[in-house]
């Protein structure tokens, strides 16, 4: 017994130590993390974001350096708060709030104290930074917009939120990320790869060398420049035309599917979302639930397409063989499709053929054709699905697959819907005849309208619309080079196109809009719309729609214009589409007569009707407020940099005044 005690104790003690060490090293993970936080400091080197050019090589977006003041709360010592606040033009409450926020995040890790200082503020701060322990400057690159249009196309850059940081380990708090538009779609290409340096620290937080000789360090990779399919000049012109009108314009090059212009109105100057004022401005834009300047009407708005849809009805009817280009229907200024149900028609009436039906936009003709399509088969459901299949081959009723992050499906109804809606009823073509003229369940976004116009221009095929033309040293997605052919035979397009050409003719719905030297094919549209105002379903002024492509042979541009509450197609959308086409094809405007009317005209009265009690023009307020400060700041910096007299750049002043 006496001999065994000490050896047993040695063995037991050794085992106990090992068990405890096993627990520390293998079971409990928390020490590993603490050790990394303790000893390794990570430094980032942010590359410059790629530049963005338009299709003609014009620089749209460049970069400017921006300086974030970062803070490591634990290291803040002996701070002269008063001097610090005065230097940065902040008050003490703001200072305390920011410090508290940083401390809550982590006392040891850097947080952004004040983001996006401009050069002037940076210079002043840099001079005194040695006085402020715990603060340092993180240089980043932010956008410098060379143009004042295209905000909806570009999107913007913002600090990542916690959700992104949690989801994607690349992003750390304070990092910038592209949101919306091409900044979001091509985020990874534009941003490049930030460089990472692991630096070993000692207990005094002094840097004592690189961790593992830089084994885990990476070098920053520059973001790639991209070229957009947008024509900067056309985009700008479109936005100018849409001032004080709400709606969207989408122009596509039919041969390639390249988006030439993507206009939404109301819009804002992209420069509003840069710099220290970004979040303030953004929330103002975001909260404007009436004008919705952040809402891209070209991509997100779904409207009943109205008369342009008749073109598709005609094509399907031809393809299904229920009419030919010589088929006649008699129009008595309207169409009776059920007892007591009469659809009025604005055409000149009489015995009418396809050609005149298009350029006069005859409701009767296309309603009759549609009923024939649906009633061709005894199984009307089958016929509806066949019709829907034809439409879907135009890319309708679904997301189009373009390279912008937002979109809508639109709607092409199928038999399922009608079988459910009319369960227990016998329904046929007459029941759903409003589809014939684009007023039924069919919904399309402006970009879908434009794409279907491009398909007509191509006589039966289209390329998926896209906004990327070139990426430096990298091919673009091959899906944009893939041809999509419709289920309509090529031969049926010619009579339709002839009809659309005649729309611009003397008796057409767009007579008088023609441009000398350009053969334009178009189609007017007028869509009824309703809204609940004060609890009552109220009919609002009709939407004005116009689709067109030109030239008739070898088309170069297909366009869809949608102006909310613009009375009828020819009044607003028609001239705007025509001007856009002329501007793109000729580079100058000969129809100055209605150019002036379009540029100066306003539909604000109509929009005010929608929100009679609470309407206020937030965008107007914003622009008025911001134009001063931007002008002041830019002037200050310019004069500092170039010693030139203070001058307010014209494009910082946004076009819109209420």
């Amino acid at each position, binding site marked *: 017994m*006496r001999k065994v005690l*000490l050896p047993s104790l040695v*063995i037991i003690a050794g085992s106990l130590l090992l068990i405890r060490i096993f627990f520390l090293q293998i079971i409990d993970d928390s020490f590993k993390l603490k050790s990394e936080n303790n*000893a390794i400091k990570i430094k980032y080197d942010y590359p410059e974001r790629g530049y963005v050019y338009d299709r003609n090589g014009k620089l749209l977006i460049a970069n400017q350096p921006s300086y974030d003041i970062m803070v490591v709360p634990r290291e803040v010592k002996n701070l002269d708060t008063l001097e610090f606040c005065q230097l940065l033009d902040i008050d003490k409450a703001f200072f305390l709030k920011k410090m508290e926020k940083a401390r809550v995040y982590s006392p040891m890790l850097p947080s952004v104290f004040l983001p996006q200082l401009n050069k002037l503020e940076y210079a002043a701060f840099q001079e005194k930074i040695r006085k402020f322990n715990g603060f340092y400057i993180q240089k980043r690159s932010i956008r410098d917009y060379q143009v004042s249009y295209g905000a909806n196309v570009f999107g913007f850059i913002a600090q990542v939120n916690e959700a992104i940081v949690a989801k994607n380990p690349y992003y750390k708090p304070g990092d910038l990320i592209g949101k919306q538009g091409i900044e979001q779609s091509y985020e990874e290409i534009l941003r490049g790869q930030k460089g990472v340096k692991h630096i070993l620290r000692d207990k005094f937080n002094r840097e*004592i060398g690189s961790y593992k000789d830089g084994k885990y360090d990476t070098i920053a990779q520059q973001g790639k420049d991209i070229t957009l399919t947008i024509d900067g000049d056309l985009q700008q012109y479109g936005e100018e035309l849409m001032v004080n009108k709400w709606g969207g314009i989408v122009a596509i090059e039919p041969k390639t599917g390249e988006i030439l212009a993507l206009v939404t109105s109301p819009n804002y100057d992209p420069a509003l979302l840069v710099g220290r004022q970004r979040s303030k401005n953004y929330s103002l834009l975001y909260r404007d639930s009436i004008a919705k300047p952040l809402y891209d009407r070209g991509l997100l708005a779904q409207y009943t397409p109205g008369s342009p849809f008749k073109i598709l009805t005609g094509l399907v009817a031809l393809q299904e063989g229920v009419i030919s280009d010589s088929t006649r229907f008699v129009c008595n200024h309207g169409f009776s499709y059920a007892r007591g149900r009469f659809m009025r028609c604005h055409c000149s009436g009489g015995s009418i053929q396809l050609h005149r039906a298009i350029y006069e936009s005859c409701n009767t003709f296309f309603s009759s054709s549609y009923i024939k399509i649906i009633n061709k088969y005894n199984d009307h459901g089958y016929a509806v699905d066949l019709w829907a299949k034809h439409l879907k081959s135009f890319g309708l009723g679904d997301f189009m697959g373009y390279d912008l992050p937002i979109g809508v499906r639109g709607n092409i109804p199928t038999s399922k819907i009608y079988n459910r809606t009319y369960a227990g009823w016998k329904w046929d073509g007459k029941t759903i005849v409003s589809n014939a003229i684009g007023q039924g369940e069919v919904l399309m976004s402006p970009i879908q309208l434009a794409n279907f116009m491009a398909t007509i221009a191509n006589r039966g095929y289209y390329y998926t619309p896209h906004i990327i033309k070139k990426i430096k040293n990298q091919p673009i997605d091959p899906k944009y080079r893939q041809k999509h052919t419709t289920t309509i035979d090529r031969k049926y397009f010619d009579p339709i196109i002839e009809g659309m050409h005649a729309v611009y003719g003397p008796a057409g719905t767009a007579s008088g809009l023609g441009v000398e030297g350009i053969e334009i094919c178009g189609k007017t549209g007028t869509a009824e719309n309703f809204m609940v105002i004060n609890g009552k379903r109220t009919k609002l002024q009709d939407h004005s729609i116009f689709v067109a492509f030109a030239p008739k042979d070898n088309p170069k541009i297909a366009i869809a214009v949608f102006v909310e509450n613009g009375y009828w197609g020819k009044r607003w959308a028609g001239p705007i589409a025509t001007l856009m086409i002329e501007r793109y094809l000729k580079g100058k405007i000969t129809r100055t007569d209605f150019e002036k009317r379009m540029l100066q005209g306003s539909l604000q009265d109509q929009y005010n009707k929608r929100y009679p009690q609470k309407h206020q023009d937030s965008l107007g307020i914003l622009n008025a407020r911001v134009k001063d400060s931007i002008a002041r700041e830019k002037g200050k910096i310019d004069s500092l940099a170039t010693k030139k007299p203070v001058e307010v750049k014209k494009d910082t002043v946004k076009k819109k005044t209420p």
Partner: protein
Amino acid sequence: MRNQSVSSNIDWISIVIYITLVILGWLNIYSSSLSGAPEDASIFDFSQIYGKQFLFILFSIPIIFTILAIEAKFYEKYSIIIFAVSLLSLAGLFVFGKTIAGQRCWYGIGSFTLQPSEFAKAATALALAKYLSDVQVNLREMNRQIQALFIVFLPVMLILPQPDPGSALIYFVFFFVLYREGLPGWYLVTGFIAILLFILTLATNNPYIVIGLTALTLVVNHYRSRLVDRNIFASILMFLMISVFTFSVNFVFNNVFKQHHRDRFNILLGKEVDMKGVGYNTNQSEIAIGSGGWFGKGYLEGTQTKGGFVPEQHTDYIFTTVGEEWGFLGSLFVIGLFVGLILRIIYLAERQKTKFSRVYGYCVAGILFIHFFVNIAMVIGVFPTIGVPLPFFSYGGSGLWGFTILLFIFLKMDANKVNEW
């Protein structure tokens, strides 16, 4: 030739383990005291800690050969003189000692310091062995017990006021040696109960709870055990003693102990969570070891080690480097070496022909054991922070030479056992 007989009879297993530990210790001291890139530093830079340790290691070689060259009988014959010299050197500290960080434990010769308490252990072991090897000594006799304990506590009396509680603590290991040689078991049992009561009193921070528990145990014991002589007076006496002990622990802890002593216990008992202040050492050493994982971060790659987050890492906390850079497997290896060496020494001690060398061997095993256990237990946070080095590992000339002398005197005796007829 005498040397030949030493080399053929000496225990090579112990020597191999000894060399391995010393070299591993030096490698870890190198890692822990290196700042900056390894290329910039020469291993033999004698202005650096690792360079000095290399010198200490070099100098232990002549020490070893001297010890082995001396006749084994010498140690027995002169043990009392060695002990007396050692005590004198301890006492001399009060006059000539050099004070470092509040402790008067060193003799300073220029920049060089010597810590006599590191050598006193071996001297005490020799003296105790000499005393017990006397055939007339029977530890069952009370006055013999007192004499033996006097030998042990004489150096403690000189070490405690330096103050060096860590070194003083070591001497309690001689109780195991005395027990092996016949000291009654109740010494150990009493010691164990005292430690238990101590911890309980501090943990509950209420002496009445402990006393209540004791009373309950005694009452239950009184009625349940019919085999043991039921002496009601013995039970009452025991109860009174425990009560007095408990109260005095409470009193001493709250009134005699300094705040930093209280803090050290409180951290262990989980009462203190101030990891920036008094808990810093333990917290940082746990982080360093805990971040090692299975295989460690690799030699010279320990982030905590390089950052110097663990205080006193090259001395008392040297094991954190092992834990961080070599991981669990490295820790297992080092602990395995220590356990192996101690068990080997116990085995060698038991086969000694003379009582003197057996007791001495037992002392060596016990001293190594208590250092090894207390040091690593402290580093991994299960023992209060107390200055006890890891034998052969920790930086320091006195420590290395003290342990070397301690071990090799025994190895010399062991190698000589064939002549002991």
